[in-house]
């Protein structure tokens, strides 16, 4: 049976068209784009084309606003460290409790070494940002705001453009980790107040180890890596040219597939989610149903532990992931679920299915076929399961 891959928020399959576009840049077009000779020049031109593809995907005003990086983590680190260095008169960071570790760990480290003070804005039970707390944290001491466009675990989307406007009123730089949003949600940067945006290739069918940081023209910037004059001196190091070409191709494909993400992929997700809620009692969706990525479905199943579900899914040839403690090696559920304060009866039983354009109806059917049996089996083992049959539609989690 063909394996079913539903962990696209972790990483995606590289599109064969992306691979095909990259291949010549290993053995034929191997020149250094900085070289003047013909080996370099044609590569330089291709790197520029790739940049304009990313510009189009992001709706950016200028192609040189795109800086290639080694991925989302480097882009996030660069953005925050750059802002602190570029705004020496300010030393505060505003971020949220549900950010990716690429932002959170850095902020915690900066606090520990006394380099900055960080505000971690909380979220409500649906993962929506606490706007009041956000407004209260903003001041003219804030160098940078870093808030994610869409959450990797729940898919919940923050109202980023509005949040950026608020940051601007205090003169802070605004960065968004859009690693999960790029390619899945429409983005248009040119008229926004967003100064910096991170993206990562491997979340949009390009290879791992390539990404980009958008820096708005005129925004203050300090490089993380110093050395050669690549990327206009903003990110030194000979470009990962095959990666860059692959990212450019992936951006082109993402633009072409954007409507599909919002329609076909979303319909698949909705059918999966609706099917699970209908077939399995005592479960509910984690995240903001009104503002969510079209591909992400995070469901909490009461009275079971996520690792057991994943082990069964793995045996059935289905790949998904879990915010549960057991699978991560930590003893507590994910920081995102904890920040959302989801009911403790279900916090340990949350499973994330994340789709992409590679998925089809058959994949959804397979999950719908096996999940009820898995839950039944595990719940029969659970000392807390009393068999109360509250169907998904009627079932409301109890926030004790």
């Amino acid at each position: 049976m063909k394996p079913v891959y539903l962990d696209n928020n972790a990483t995606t399959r590289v599109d064969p068209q992306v691979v095909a576009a990259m291949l010549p840049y290993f053995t034929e077009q191997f020149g250094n784009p900085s070289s003047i000779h013909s080996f370099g020049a044609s590569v330089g031109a291709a790197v520029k084309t790739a940049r304009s593809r990313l510009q189009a995907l992001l709706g950016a005003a200028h192609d040189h606003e795109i800086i290639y990086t080694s991925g989302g983590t480097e882009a996030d680190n660069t953005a925050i460290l750059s802002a602190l260095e570029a705004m020496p008169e300010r030393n505060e960071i505003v971020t949220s409790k549900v950010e990716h570790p690429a932002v959170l760990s850095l902020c915690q480290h900066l606090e520990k070494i006394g380099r900055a003070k960080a505000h971690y804005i909380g979220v409500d039970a649906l993962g929506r940002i606490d706007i009041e707390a956000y407004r209260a944290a903003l001041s003219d001491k804030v160098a940078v705001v870093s808030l994610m466009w869409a959450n990797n675990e729940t898919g919940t989307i923050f109202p980023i453009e509005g949040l950026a406007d608020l940051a601007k009123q205090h003169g802070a730089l605004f960065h968004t980790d859009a690693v999960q949003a790029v390619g899945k949600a429409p983005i248009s940067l040119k008229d926004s107040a967003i100064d910096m945006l991170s993206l990562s290739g491997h979340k949009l069918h390009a290879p791992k180890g390539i990404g980009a940081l958008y820096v708005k023209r005129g925004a203050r910037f300090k490089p993380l890596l110093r050395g050669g004059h690549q990327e206009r001196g903003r990110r030194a190091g000979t470009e990962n040219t095959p990666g860059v070409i692959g990212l450019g191709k992936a951006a082109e494909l993402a633009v072409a597939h954007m409507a599909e993400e919002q329609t076909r992929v979303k319909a698949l997700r909705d059918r999966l989610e609706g099917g699970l809620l209908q077939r399995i009692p005592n479960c509910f969706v984690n995240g903001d149903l009104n503002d969510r990525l079209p591909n992400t479905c995070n469901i909490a199943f009461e009275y079971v532990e996520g690792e057991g579900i994943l082990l069964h899914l793995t045996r059935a040839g289905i790949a998904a992931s879990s915010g549960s403690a057991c699978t991560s090696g930590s003893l507590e559920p994910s920081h995102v679920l904890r920040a959302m304060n989801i009911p403790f009866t279900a916090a340990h039983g949350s499973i994330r299915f994340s789709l992409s354009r590679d998925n089809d109806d058959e994949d959804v059917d397979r999950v719908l076929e096996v999940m009820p049996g898995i839950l039944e089996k595990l719940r029969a083992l659970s000392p807390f399961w009393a068999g109360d049959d509250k169907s998904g539609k009627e079932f409301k989690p109890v926030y004790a």
Partner: protein
Amino acid sequence: MWDYTDKVKDYFFNPKNAGVLAEANAIGEVGAIACGDALKLMLSVDPESEIIREAKFQTFGCGSAIASSSALTEIIIGKTLDDALKITNQDIADFLGGLPPEKMHCSVMGYEALQSAVANYRGEVWKDDHEEGELVCKCFGVDAGLIERAIKMNKLTTVEQVTDYTKAGGGCLTCFDKLEEILARTNAELVAEGVLAEHDAYRVGAADPKKIKEKAQAAKERESLTQISPLAPASPLPPLSAGLTNLQKIRLIEETIEELRPYLRKDGGDCELVDVEGSNVLVKLAGACVGCQMSSVTISGIQERLMAKLGFPVRVVPVGRNAH
């Protein structure tokens, strides 16, 4: 995921003795759902011979917790209570061909459940019921008694091991000092009994002081990050009320939208109140706002104004616009 042995996988996928034992005359329960694992062990003990005739379990927890519970029942069926009590958590792990170190607490849970069930049968109060031991790790509800037993039974000599075997300290780690103290004291007892070499025993502060500071610091950061004890029951979303009647709320919302309308119109857009559901304010965007990239700005703008006016959080939800 975890590198489980084939036997662990087998006992997880095809657990033996799972379910409820209706005629149980000894029941042991340990753990809690909030802590991520719990085990209910049910035994049917022959009153004459004290032989365990049947054993069943129900477990909430990860793969290795379920496998450990099932293994425990397999080991003890047919044994007398006295023989069963001699079983250690290591015996459970060995039966399964070993457990990943971080999962050893699953075997300890099995051991504890058995002790509790036997005490229940004999009409004793199991020590674990917080009689003798004070609660040390609040994150996972682990008391001093369990920690001491796990240290003694497994000759644990580091704080990390104590966490692997009992989960104590696996959360906020504010109990680090207490764990150190218990570990040092219990190790000293083991040395006195001659079962632990003096130079292996843990001494308070033996962990690199820098590391301790870092851990405490990390704990503080985590605290500030979540500001909730792990899995404290959630508080509900505040309802859209705060003393106002529905009609008053709707009037206020309409007034606010009315105030904003000139600005929206200026940009060629418009907004109309459709309904109020709980704390959700459903609106219909019209004109240039529809499907516009910037509609989320509009929405967050309206939302902000509403919250300022109403004095409590609301969510503005656009309805009837093109999905985007």
